[in-house]
């Protein structure tokens, strides 16, 4: 693989500051998102038995939790990470003017949406299903955030083209393949979203149109909502393929596998959103089943990844002196304070074993009946987005902050513990929610007042006891984040010890085959778009004939 090692490049101050801001602005907001995650577990366990706590209503807080953690933090991080990868691996700094425009759009969008959420004008959760309506600033803010991320991507494309022209015959660096795949998936996801938000929701929330087709909006949302999860996951995959093997002390088992995986995600990420709508009316079972099939297709690249990463870790462990069929697992740098990224990546991958299996269960057509909209679902995705994705993102934030400021990471022995604390907390939270979920406990519900309140006629005893386990998990997750913030802040406040710059640990490939049929994006994008058309055209037709009339708007109160 090209340019392996720890080579650092230097950036202009303007780019450096921009990337730092793109990392730190959402990290500050994250404090609210995390806080409310913890408080939710208290409400659900009946430890807080009220509609609201410290001035924030349960559903207002849940909206903040979902929007900040899953939309704002992830999107801004992906842009910052992309800017850094392009500068490092293409050796070209993204033009700073457009990069600042992108950041400004994302920030203004975030502030508009934050205004609506914090003032209680948008307590309709991060899926914003109509006909519940929010203040127009919420939708306009979301649109600006997305447009800002598009600008960043368009800013990189010419740099990629010129790199290809100047380096004929060389393989595109794997990190670049990965981040471009991420943003191709993002484009495919955000086009239906843009239609929903700009054409349908904004005019309707402004009162320019009276009625909205609820099922169509919901279908477009999930046309966006599933590829969204790969937009979250793929930057983490870039780190796993490009960086993890080197940190572990080895090589990437197969460079070709990495390229194939990223291209497969372009093909299969989008045409699967109907698996969130198995219980919906207005969509034929044939199309529901077809999207089950395609969802299994998108499991394939993750199964390939599981093998490739395990093989890379085994190679590393054997380089470190590991032996035996399984004993080599003990020869990895779990607690190495200098190679702290390893713990964050490893803990995330461990959670993702469960995230992957539960994801396949969710996708499995009629099995979905058992768990749809129960607590099982947040149990699942706290082992995906709040597992590997979140751990990889906060780890990379810390790494980039340290690189871009020239300040080595502080509180190192605390820092190595963060991912394992988080792992423990998520395990309790997810096991608790999964068990109650199979028992029918609803998600998105302030359980403490009724369902977990012994004084209420709605009381369900087994949900109440499991909700305590969940709250214990939430407490440990909160603690892990307090430690993380302490590490980040004390790093930021420390003295600069070397020149600011930008470097990543980059692995060599063990099998370094030619890129072959995965060398170019174009054919994969064409196939992806075609499959989307085949999977969604009949769904949209069904939705149009099953909807008898549109809906006026309703506020949640």
């Amino acid at each position, binding site marked *: 693989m090209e340019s392996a090692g720890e080579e650092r490049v230097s950036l202009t101050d303007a780019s450096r500051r921009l990337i730092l801001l793109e990392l730190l602005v959402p990290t500050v907001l994250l404090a609210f998102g995390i806080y409310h995650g913890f408080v939710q577990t208290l409400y659900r366990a009946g430890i807080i038995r009220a509609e609201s706590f410290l001035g924030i209503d349960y559903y207002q807080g849940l909206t903040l939790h979902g929007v900040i953690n899953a939309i704002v933090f992830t999107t801004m991080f992906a842009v910052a990470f992309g800017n850094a990868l392009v500068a490092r691996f293409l050796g070209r700094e993204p033009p700073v003017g457009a990069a600042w425009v992108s950041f400004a759009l994302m920030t203004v969008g975030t502030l508009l949406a934050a205004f609506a959420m914090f003032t209680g004008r948008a307590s309709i959760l991060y899926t914003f299903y109509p006909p519940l309506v929010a203040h127009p600033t919420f939708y306009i803010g979301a649109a600006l955030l997305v447009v800002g991320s598009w600008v960043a991507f368009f800013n990189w494309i010419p740099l990629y083209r010129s790199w290809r022209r100047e380096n004929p015959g060389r393989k595109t660096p794997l990190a670049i393949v990965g981040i471009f795949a991420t943003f191709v998936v993002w484009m495919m996801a955000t086009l239906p979203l843009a239609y929903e938000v700009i054409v349908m929701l904004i005019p309707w929330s402004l009162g320019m149109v009276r009625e909205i087709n609820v099922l169509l909006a919901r279908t477009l949302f999930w046309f966006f909502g599933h590829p969204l999860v790969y937009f979250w996951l793929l930057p983490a995959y870039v780190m796993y393929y490009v960086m993890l093997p080197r940190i572990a002390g080895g090589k990437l088992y197969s460079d070709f596998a990495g390229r194939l995986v990223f291209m497969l995600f372009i093909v299969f990420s989008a045409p699967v959103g109907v698996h969130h709508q198995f219980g919906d009316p207005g969509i034929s079972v044939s199309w529901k089943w077809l999207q089950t*099939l395609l969802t299994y297709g998108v499991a394939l690249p993750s199964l*390939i990844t599981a093998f490739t990463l395990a093989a890379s870790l085994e190679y590393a462990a054997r380089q470190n002196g590991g032996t035996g069929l399984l004993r080599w697992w003990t020869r990895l740098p779990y607690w190495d304070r200098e190679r702290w990224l390893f713990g964050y990546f490893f803990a995330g991958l461990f959670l993702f074993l469960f995230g992957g299996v539960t994801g396949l269960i969710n996708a499995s057509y009629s099995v979905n009946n058992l768990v749809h909209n129960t607590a099982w679902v947040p149990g699942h995705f706290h082992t995906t987005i709040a597992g590997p994705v979140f751990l990889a993102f906060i780890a990379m934030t810390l790494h980039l902050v340290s690189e871009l400021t020239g300040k080595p990471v502080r509180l190192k022995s605390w820092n190595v513990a963060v991912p394992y604390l988080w792992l423990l907390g998520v395990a309790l939270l997810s096991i608790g929610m999964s068990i109650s979920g199979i028992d029918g406990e609803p998600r998105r519900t302030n359980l403490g007042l009724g369902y977990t309140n012994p004084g209420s006629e709605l009381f369900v005893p087994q949900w109440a006891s499991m909700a305590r386990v969940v709250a214990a998990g939430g407490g440990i997750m909160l603690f892990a984040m307090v430690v993380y913030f302490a590490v980040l802040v004390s790093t930021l406040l420390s003295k600069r010890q070397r020149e600011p710059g930008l470097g990543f640990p980059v692995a060599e490939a063990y099998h370094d085959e030619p890129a072959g049929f995965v060398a170019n994006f174009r054919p994969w994008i064409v196939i992806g778009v075609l499959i989307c058309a085949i999977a969604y055209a009949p769904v949209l037709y069904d939705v149009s004939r099953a909807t008898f009339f549109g809906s006026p708007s309703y506020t949640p109160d």
Partner: protein
Amino acid sequence: MDRAEKLVLGMASALLVVFLSATVFAVARLDITLPTCFTEMEPFDEGEVIEHSEDWYEVHYLAAMWFFEPEELEVPAGATVDLYLTSDDVLHGFQILGTDVNLMAVPGTVNYKRVTFDEPGEYRIVCHEFCGIDHHWMAATITVAER
């Protein structure tokens, strides 16, 4: 690709084929169905129970902020119950605990599912989609009577 990779790819694909066959088996042999595109009935604006016969009930469930209509239903064990579900306002969820009934109530459309309750007892319906500030109170019951 080396031999190990080809082997793993084959195993992974085989696993997915097994899962896919299981979904087909569930429909073909176990009769577990999902709601489909249903256009035969217009959305209604009140709940209703129609007893076609001792063994066949038709129930129109209306979900609204923040109740279900009918709020209480009584049917005999073993009777075929055709459930029709719509919403009078926003999205609602409709899960009957302890059964495989798990539906969305979408305004402007009608959802349909056929069920039989073999075990007598009290069944609870829970709204599991956020539908506004009193969402957590939205529930109903079905009593299945012994024959």
